[in-house]
Every structure is written in C-alpha cells, then in structure tokens.
C-alpha cells in the first residue's frame, strides 16, 4: 500500500469495481489534510473512484476514514450518513430551490453542534450575498459553481470530494474561484480529493498527486516529488515543471519585485501584495529554464542560479531532452533541444547556471 509521505494517512480506500468493460482496481492511502489531486486521462476512472468513496457506486472493497470503517466486507454506510461533501462535475444545484434554499439544504440536515462554519461565513467567503434569492437558472456558470462549493462546505464535511469543479468555466471565472479553493485548503483540516485535467490547478492547489491510468494507480506521492520525476510524464509537454516552497526575503518597491528564498538560492519575481516572510509556492516550468555555462548579466533574465545536472531523459518528442537539476536540495527541470545538450556537453554532475525566464507565484 503506497503511503503518502509527510502526513498521517487518514483515508484508506481499497476498491474493485466493474463498469461494463472498465475495471477500477485501487488501493490508496491519503493524508489527513491538504489537497490530493486526482489526475488521469479521460476514462481513467477518476469519477468512478470518487463515486465509490461517496458510496454512490457500490464497489467491492474497504474504506476507512480516520479509523472509522465506512465500508468493509459486510458493512456499507449509506451515502447520506457519510460526513462528506461532493462537488459534482456538472451543474448540480436543485433547479426548484433558490440559492438560499440550495445552501440551506445540507446545512439544515446536520446537527448544529457539528457545524464548523456558519451560514453567513460561507456566503461571505464565496461572495454570494447578492444572489441568495435568485433561482439557479439566473446565475452565470461561475456563480453556480461557487454556490455548489458553498453548499458542500456548509455540511462541515470530514472529506471533501471535488470532480473537476472548474472544468466548464472560462479563464476569468476560474480566476474568480481559485482563491476560494486555496482559502478552503488552508482553513479546513480535512482531506480534499480534487479531480482536474488542468496542470495549472494541480500546481496551484495540490499537495499530493495521485495518477490514475485505466483504473489503476500508477503514481502517488507529494506534489514536489511526483512533479520532478522525469520518468513519469505527469504534466506532459508544455506543462512539465516543478513546484518549490519558498519564503519572501526582500521586497523591491520600485520595481514591484520580490526576492523569494529557497534552499539553494533565490528568485526575483513580481511581488505585488506579498510581505516579507510570507511563505509562497513557486511554479517553475521546464520550458522556462535555460542553462548557461557562464553567468551573463547583460540580459533581461534576472534569475541566475548555480546548479548541477542530476539526470537526463529523452522526452517523448525526439530532439528534446528533459534535464533534472539540483541547487542544494531543490530540484529543477529544464527542457532543452538535444543539440544544446550536446553543445554544452551536459552530463550528470556538470555545473551550470540556471537562467529562469519566468516564475509563477501560486499562493
């Protein structure tokens, strides 16, 4: 049983389910807190797994949440008795109830003493004040999804399942909702299972990553570890990269920049809204990292970091090589052409300068 490191395992799921020609066969342990991203191609069984955990699909197997069995050989806790919340992929608001009554639906059905979040709090967090009396069909897609999230939270769940909550939305609507999800993640000390096709959401929200392929778990581990594995095309093509934990060390008010320190160096990046000592997450894509043998200062790239080559892997495409590098304990990926690798004589152990063109702050 693969146990995710760095967190006491609290959700243990072992399922075997058949749906027509498809078979789900998983054995998972998830940590007590934080977001676990479920990633995998269309049809790999992500939705099926969430449905098994929720009890919406009766699979064979076992499910144990913080020491309590919700399902084992002879026992099956009915869906409505499981203290979980489920945000469905498609619109799932009750069309016959106003937003307010949609929100109250689950809220009214739990005991007042187990409520961890007040009605007004949820409304405020997700910015729903203005729409409480409207019917769901008068809402935009983004608003509908926010209501669904608030409704789920109001049941004070001990496990939160979210199935592509943002898939149907455009870029701007996503940007509206993501901060709420990040806040969620910080405030609730419960496991969140988050299905998404978007590498961006994975990088931004996830602490752990589970990779599904044709009904089987092919990888499971902490985000930084899983992402820097170059054997696994986790986030393929344009999206390969690493996520780094860092701390704001210095602000440059004039240029609206900040310097983020991590073990192995520091990076300058757009620093609006950050304060010194903020803990932040940085995403550095392999395509944004080029390598140089010397330190060149007369160019626009601000971030030059000494590092050494760890490993090289031919990427899926011919002529392209993925290079794993290390600056102290921090790993980076860099995607280069094979010719550049040859020109610079890159081999494991070689000292180089990382030229980082672009860094994204995730939270």
């Amino acid at each position, binding site marked *: 049983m693969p146990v995710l490191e760095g967190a006491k395992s609290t959700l243990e799921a072992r399922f075997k389910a058949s749906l027509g020609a498809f078979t789900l066969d998983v054995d998972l342990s998830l940590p007590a807190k934080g977001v676990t991203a479920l990633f995998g191609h269309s049809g790999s069984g992500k939705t099926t797994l969430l449905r098994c955990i929720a009890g919406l699909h009766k699979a064979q197997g076992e499910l144990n949440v913080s020491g309590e069995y919700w399902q084992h050989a002879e026992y099956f806790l009915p869906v409505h008795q499981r203290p979980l*919340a*489920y945000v469905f992929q498609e619109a799932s608001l009750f069309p016959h109830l106003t937003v307010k009554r949609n929100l109250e639906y689950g809220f009214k059905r739990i005991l007042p003493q187990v409520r961890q979040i007040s009605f007004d709090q949820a409304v405020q967090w997700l910015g729903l004040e203005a729409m409480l009396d409207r019917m769901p069909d008068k809402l935009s897609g983004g608003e509908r999804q926010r209501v669904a999230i608030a409704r789920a939270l109001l*049941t004070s769940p001990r496990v939160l399942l979210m199935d592509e909550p943002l898939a149907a939305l455009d870029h701007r609507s996503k940007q509206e909702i993501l901060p709420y999800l990040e806040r969620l993640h910080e405030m609730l000390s419960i496991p969140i299972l988050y299905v998404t096709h978007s590498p961006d959401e994975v990088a931004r929200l996830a602490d752990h990553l589970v990779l599904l392929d044709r009904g089987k778990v092919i990888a499971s581990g902490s985000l930084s570890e899983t992402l820097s594995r170059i054997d696994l095309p986790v986030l393929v093509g344009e999206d390969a990269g690493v996520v780094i934990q860092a701390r704001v060390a210095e602000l440059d008010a004039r240029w609206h920049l900040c310097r983020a320190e991590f073990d192995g160096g520091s990076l300058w990046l757009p620093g609006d809204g950050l304060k010194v000592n903020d803990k932040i997450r940085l995403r550095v894509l392999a395509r944004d990292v080029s390598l140089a043998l010397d330190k060149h200062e007369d160019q626009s790239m601000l971030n030059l970091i000494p590092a050494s080559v760890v490993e090289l892997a031919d990427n899926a495409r011919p002529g392209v090589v993925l290079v794993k590098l290390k600056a102290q304990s921090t790993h980076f990926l860099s995607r280069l052409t094979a010719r550049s690798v040859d020109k610079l004589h890159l081999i494991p152990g070689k000292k180089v300068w990382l030229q980082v063109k672009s860094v994204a702050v995730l939270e």
Partner: protein
Amino acid sequence: MEFDWTPVWLTLKLAGITTFTLMFVGTPIAWWLARTTHWLKQPVAAVVALPLVLPPTVLGFYLLLLLGPQGMVGEITQALGLGTLPFTFAGLVVASVFYSLPFVVQPLQNAFEAQGVRMLEVAATLRASPLDRFLTVAVPLARPGFMTAAVLAFAHTVGEFGVVLMIGGNIPGETKVLSVAIYDHVETLEYEQAHLLAGGMLVFSFTVLLVLYMVNGRLHRSGR
C-alpha cells in the same frame, strides 16, 4: 323547480377525496416502477393498467362481489367491524381509486423516469435520507407529472359512472353523484334538465381546468 345542489357537492367531494387518495396511493407505486430493476416491474406495471381494460359496469360488478358480504375484502372489512363498503361513500372512494389508478401511475412514472438520478445523488451527499430526498427533490421535480395525474384523476372521477352506479346504489345525498343524475335525466327523456346539468358541469370543469393550467404555466415559467 328548485335546483338540487346535492349531487354537485357530492361529486366534487368524491372527486376531491379520490384524487387526494390517489396521489398517496399512486406516487409510491409510480416511484417503485420508475426506479426498480426487479423482474416484477413489468408485470406490476401491466396489472396497474388493467382496470382500464374492463368496462366500468363490469368492473363495478366484480368490485361488488369482492367488497360484498361474501367477498374476500368484504369479509375482512366485516371482521374489522367496518361493515361492508358497497352503498357507502367510502365504497365509492375505494372503487374510484381503483378505477383511476392507471391515470395517476402512468404520468408519474414517466415524470420520475425522466428526471434521472443525478439530483437524488446530490441530495444524498447533502445528508438527505431516501424518504427525505424523495419528498424534497423527486416530488418537486416531477411537478408536471403530478399536474397531469391530478387532472386525469379528478376529471375521470367526475365523469365516472358505471362503477359509481354499481357500487353506489344511487342513494340521494350519499352516492348519487352528478353523472348519475344526468344519466337519470337522459333515461327518462328529460333532456332539458340533462342539458342544464351537463352544460353546467362542462362550464365548471372548463373553468377549473383553465385556472389550473394557467396557474401551473405561471409557476412553471417562474419556478425554473
């Protein structure tokens, strides 16, 4: 001649109580039929549709045998100290419920089948028990089906006749409903009175239906 309102009230009372009762009897059956995959599903569906096939008078005849003192049901009701049902208002209700059942079950079954399971799953994850989600989700979503079911059941009970005549015994003030009154007039060639009653009944029913449809249309538009 003074107009006798008794049959009118009796008819409305019968149709009202029958429709009301049918909603309670028909809804669980329709729900079960819409959701089950049990092998008995199709046979039960066929049995529910059967009362339609027998002519009302004949159905009334068999109900008379069944509910009468020697009938199976009659023996039970007598043993319970309820007496027998024929010639009572309660008997009329029982017969009408039985007779109009298919008109309630079919539209409700269609409505339940059309709504799928997604909303029920959502309600389950929001801690609603099976009964709870049935009442707070499935039923409200099936509103057009309930509307059709109620209209068919009410109208059919108002117009019902053979069964009523047979089970009711045409007792003024107790089982002599409007349809029987009109029938009496036609039989005795009192066409004037028949026209009057029938015309009034049509106008009244038309008005009720129209109001019902309009209110429903309004709710429908604003509600979804």
